[in-house]
């Protein structure tokens, strides 16, 4: 069974540019989460999808971040325009619909904004 995959694995962009991160959850997982780890800090929750619906986006830093999950399958997280403080590792996780189920994480996308 394929795990959670994320693309790209690394991205280096300049301040002001746009970057789109992609997450493919495990097949059959309706819950999809985005998290972010800024260097030296905790992994922090960004948002939660159930199928194609945003259930909780309380962790999104500001309106430069836009997440979508069209058709309830893969998800994208777009940062536009990117700022220096957006640098970090962006993790995606998925789980079955019953929320208490284990969240399976992807390898993360390392974003560096110069």
């Amino acid at each position: 069974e394929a795990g959670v995959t994320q693309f790209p694995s690394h991205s280096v962009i300049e301040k002001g540019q746009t970057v789109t991160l992609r997450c493919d959850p495990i097949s059959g997982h309706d819950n999809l989460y985005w998290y972010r780890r800024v260097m030296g800090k905790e992994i922090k929750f960004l948002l939660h999808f159930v199928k194609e619906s945003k259930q909780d986006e309380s962790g999104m830093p500001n309106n430069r971040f836009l997440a979508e999950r069209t058709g309830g399958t893969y998800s994208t997280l777009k940062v536009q325009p990117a700022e220096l403080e957006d640098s970090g590792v962006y993790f995606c996780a998925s789980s079955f619909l019953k929320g208490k189920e284990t969240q399976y994480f992807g390898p993360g996308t390392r974003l560096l904004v110069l």
Partner: protein
Amino acid sequence: AQTVTQSQPEMSVQEAETVTLSCTYDTSESNYYLFWYKQPPSRQMILVIRQEAYKQQNATENRFSVNFQKAAKSFSLKISDSQLGDTAMYFCAFMKQGRYDGGSNYKLTFGKGTLLTVNP
């Protein structure tokens, strides 16, 4: 809001020895789950062990076990017979339990992590 504290940024242990990683948390919830995840170098984060707060018995998974002290809000991870492959960043995480009502009940709150190095 919940907080999770891992007071040991780095630890090291000799192969075959036992090591304990500490984790404390703060919450007003009475029902919740606690997790330990590990992230080996350049690899995916995987679940090591989970504990339901309503269970008094400490969870165990092979060489990994926890010491869950609910009153003290402590959740330490013990790794017995450490192996080189245990070298990783270990994250303690909290998730509150609740009725699924479309809210944010199932997001994880993480500590900063402990980098464990197992030396040969």
